[in-house]
């Protein structure tokens, strides 16, 4: 099949690259409208309390300040920032535009709207807020212990989930290993801060320009909050500078929409970095304990786990996140028995929610650090141990009961071990001096859309223009990783023309068909399959038109390089341009089609990653010196960007393993207020990342393609942690492995010796 592919598997830049290198592209933060006002939020200075009084008089007296909105003069309807459909069951409506009961440092208390950003900022500094403080509940343990201090009326447990599958086996003589792993609260680190622009019209309708990952999803939150019928709220996706999950949910959109609607003016809210870190959303901190039992020969018999997730001040998507932490291990390992409890616990800390991988990097860290300990207990090589237990192609996921599809995780591990020269590197001594080397491996699994858990479908329309080029109408949301290009390549492959001859835009609820948005690793597998099916339908119409013009039966025709050709008679071919021109003379509908595609499966995507590290035992600093990422992506639609996804994901995963954490101090404040104290890996510290893609047919994605963006970062952190533990002969499992933690572990070890 691969040989027949003309465009799929090539390498293409992101669709708007030409405007990005010139600076011409207007991002959300660059966007402005005539008469536009600017908003600045006033955020809670206390981690937990009741707002007793807000004095806005000095702010409103400032020339240029239009109005100050607070919890005392704004609607207090509750909404769920993570809701994507009004029919959705799992959605916690616990948030208001402004809070009277403030639940973390950074909770929204008021917004100052003014003629300029500078005036709005000056006005915000003049708003005086009086709080009656409540006990802060800054950790999961404290929040669980203090049931007498409910953060929300329903208590401090946002969600509990438990799954048990298979029969509890006889563990007589089994090797039992326990571990406990924690992962940090982190900042997504998209370079463009959160921004939203909304224009309220006198008539009551409005337009919202969002950099979010779901325009329709944003609309369901905004319209209901403002009591507007959906058709009066137009939400348009504008170019965004990265998301990584941080812009999945609707955090600034409801506020800006409300301000613009209330004032019947255009209003822009652009957050600064400190606000992005503390007051939007973080990757939730987690803690997982695992106890496994293995036969002496290394077959896993039992997997028992308990995970706790710090939801922060609002449930957001953390209930679903906690469910998903229980749905990854059985995509990876064959287990006779699996039991996993998880719970999402509210605390008075920054809100946790969607982050690249949606629970998978968190549980992969716990699982894969654990599996290295099991291998050590069995005195087996980590690769050899995993090969005894990884799933086989076409196994069934024990938890979901869904087929895993053509699951090639073993192939990833086997080919990766060869490419990385694993056996030789693992055998090399770590050294006994100041600098010690080690290698580590980790596996990860993720999903392909929401099939099996949520109605999973997409809609598109595709038409041929009068000159034979094409327009794809779809609600795409490109966070910057090439979603639009992916769709163009898929359509191009079906229609036999270069992707550059296909236009595809992004979501606009007034013109593009319904789609949930860019999340759940659903873009390539589900939305891409929709693009393929829609293009196939258009191709059928194109061939029918060509059949009439060439006076040939459809069966004899095929598409090649922008023409419809007669098989075995290559001389007879008609260019798309001429089909478009001549078919117009038939007074028939244009060559176009629209389609609803329903997903039919949800296989697993896999990645296996290998890290080599050098640890400085004196300073505790770890350098990642070499890295290989192997991915079972089914088929690379856009090879260059597929590889680039892994390279970028490894940057994020190394940060997760070694550097990135947003800690909350005893006063409830974030210890991080900018990139100066939040370290993301920069160019000198990044290793050269080799990428190896495992490709095959056999799943239902377009041309066999599966998801890549999220899975790419799933096993990175545990691969690095396992390498450090290999180098130092330690059992580090609290991420990130900061120099302090590494030095402490070494000190504890020398204390033992």
């Amino acid at each position, binding site marked *: 099949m691969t040989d027949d592919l003309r465009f799929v598997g090539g*390498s293409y830049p992101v669709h708007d690259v030409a405007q990005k290198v010139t*600076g011409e592209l207007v991002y959300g933060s660059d966007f402005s409208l005539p008469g536009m006002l600017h908003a600045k939020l006033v955020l809670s200075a206390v981690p937990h309390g009741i707002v007793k009084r807000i004095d806005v008089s000095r702010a409103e007296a400032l020339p240029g300040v239009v109005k100050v909105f607070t919890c005392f003069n704004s609607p207090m309807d509750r909404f769920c920032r993570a809701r994507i459909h009004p029919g959705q069951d799992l959605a916690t409506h616990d948030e208001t535009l402004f809070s009277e009961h403030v639940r973390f440092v950074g909770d929204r208390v008021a917004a100052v709207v003014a003629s300029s950003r500078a005036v709005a900022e000056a006005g915000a500094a003049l708003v005086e807020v009086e709080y009656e403080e409540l006990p802060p509940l800054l950790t999961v343990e404290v929040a669980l212990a203090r049931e007498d201090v409910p953060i929300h009326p329903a208590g401090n447990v946002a969600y509990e989930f438990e799954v048990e599958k298979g029969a509890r086996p006889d563990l007589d003589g089994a090797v039992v290993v326990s571990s406990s792993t924690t992962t940090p609260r982190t900042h997504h680190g998209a370079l463009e801060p959160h921004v939203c622009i909304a224009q309220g019209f006198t008539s009551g309708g409005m337009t919202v320009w969002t950099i979010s990952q779901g325009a329709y999803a944003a609309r369901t939150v905004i319209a209901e909050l403002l009591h507007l019928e959906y058709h009066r709220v137009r939400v348009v996706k504008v170019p*965004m500078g990265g998301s990584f999950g941080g812009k999945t949910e609707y955090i600034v959109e409801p506020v800006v929409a409300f301000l613009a609607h209330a004032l019947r003016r255009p209003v822009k809210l652009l957050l600064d970095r400190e606000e992005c870190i503390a007051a939007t959303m973080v990757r939730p901190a987690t803690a997982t304990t695992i106890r496994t039992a293995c036969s002496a020969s290394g077959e896993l018999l039992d997997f028992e786990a308990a995970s706790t997730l710090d939801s922060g001040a609002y449930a957001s998507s953390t209930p679903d996140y906690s469910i998903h932490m229980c749905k990854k291990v059985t995509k990876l390992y064959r287990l006779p028995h699996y039991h996993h409890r998880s719970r999402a616990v509210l605390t008075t800390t920054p809100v946790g929610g969607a982050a690249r991988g949606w629970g998978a990097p968190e549980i992969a860290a716990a699982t894969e650090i654990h599996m290295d300990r099991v291998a050590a207990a069995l005195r087996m090589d980590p690769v050899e141990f995993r090969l005894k237990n990884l799933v086989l192609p076409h196994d069934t996921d024990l938890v979901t009961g869904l087929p895993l599809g053509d699951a090639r995780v073993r192939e990833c591990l086997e080919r990766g071990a060869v490419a990385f020269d694993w056996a030789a590197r693992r055998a090399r001594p770590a050294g006994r001096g100041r600098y010690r080397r080690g290698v580590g491996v980790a596996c990860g699994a993720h999903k392909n859309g929401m099939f099996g858990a949520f109605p999973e479908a997409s809609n598109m329309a595709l038409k041929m223009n009068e000159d034979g080029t094409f327009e794809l109408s779809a609600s795409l949301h490109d966070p910057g990783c090439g979603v639009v290009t992916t769709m163009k390549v898929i359509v191009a492959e079906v229609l036999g023309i270069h992707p550059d001859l296909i236009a595809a835009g992004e979501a606009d609820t007034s013109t593009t068909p319904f789609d949930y948005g860019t999340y759940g690793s659903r873009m390539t597998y589900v939305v891409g399959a929709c693009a393929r099916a829609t293009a196939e339908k258009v191709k059928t119409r194109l061939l029918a038109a060509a059949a009439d*013009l060439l006076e040939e039966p459809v069966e004899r025709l095929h598409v090649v390089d922008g023409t419809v050709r007669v098989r075995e008679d290559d*001389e007879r071919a008609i260019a798309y341009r001429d089909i478009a021109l001549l078919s117009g*003379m038939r*007074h028939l509908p244009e060559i176009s089609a629209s389609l609803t595609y329903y997903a039919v499966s949800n296989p697993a995507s896999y990645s296996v990653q290998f890290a080599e590290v050098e640890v400085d035992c004196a300073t505790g600093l770890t350098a990642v010196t070499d890295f290989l990422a192997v991915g079972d992506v089914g088929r690379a639609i856009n090879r260059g960007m597929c590889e680039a996804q892994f390279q970028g994901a490894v940057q994020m995963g190394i940060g997760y393993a070694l550097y990135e954490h947003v800690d909350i101090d005893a006063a409830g404040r974030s210890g991080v207020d900018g*990139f*100066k104290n939040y370290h993301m890996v920069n*160019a000198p510290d990044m290793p050269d990342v080799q990428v190896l893609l495992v490709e095959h047919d056999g799943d239902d994605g377009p041309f066999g393609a599966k998801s890549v963006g999220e899975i790419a970062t799933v096993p990175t952190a545990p691969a690095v942690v396992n390498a450090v533990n290999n180098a130092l002969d330690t059992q580090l499992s609290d991420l990130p492995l900061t120099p302090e933690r590494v030095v402490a572990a070494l000190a504890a070890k020398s204390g033992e010796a």
Partner: protein
Amino acid sequence: MELLLTVNGSLYEVNVHPTARLLDVLREDLGFTGTKEGCAEGECGACTVLVDGKAVASCVMLAVQARGKEIVTVEGLARDGELDLLQQKFVEYGAVQCGFCTPGMLMSAKALLLANPVPSDQDIRVALAGNLCRCTGYSAIIAAVKAASGQEATPLMELPGAAEELAAEVQTDPDTLAAAREAAEKIAGLGPAPHGEA
């Protein structure tokens, strides 16, 4: 205060507050929004511009400090509709994803190549140390800068422009076209087509 600034080869007179940041004057007063703001503390590099040929974070420079100096923003790289070689290589090597760091990366890389026309990989990494990217993992960016310095690097992306060549190739041969036109006229006279989608 009145201030004369030279940006991308043109002279501008602006009226700025003495504490105005160069970044705000470029973006808000002069409309050069290609220069981005990611952190406001000189850490992320998205706001990097050239000041007298050196890479500067414009979020931590006062506009008045740029008086009398030559400022170049990302908008000043392309000349007469032709992309600068660095821009071309960023496209060809897939060095751009979300693109928000791209203007700053380009300007830091430009400053590097002005000072060191044949940089090593390590020179490039160090020159870009103050420019954060969350999408690419930096490899493609480093390769693009290397390629722009004339050193060997393997291109990654299919170049834009292939489409024009492809489109030009596509011509219906005159006999087939004449027959098709006749067929179309015939169908038009017959009403709904045999394959009638309607």
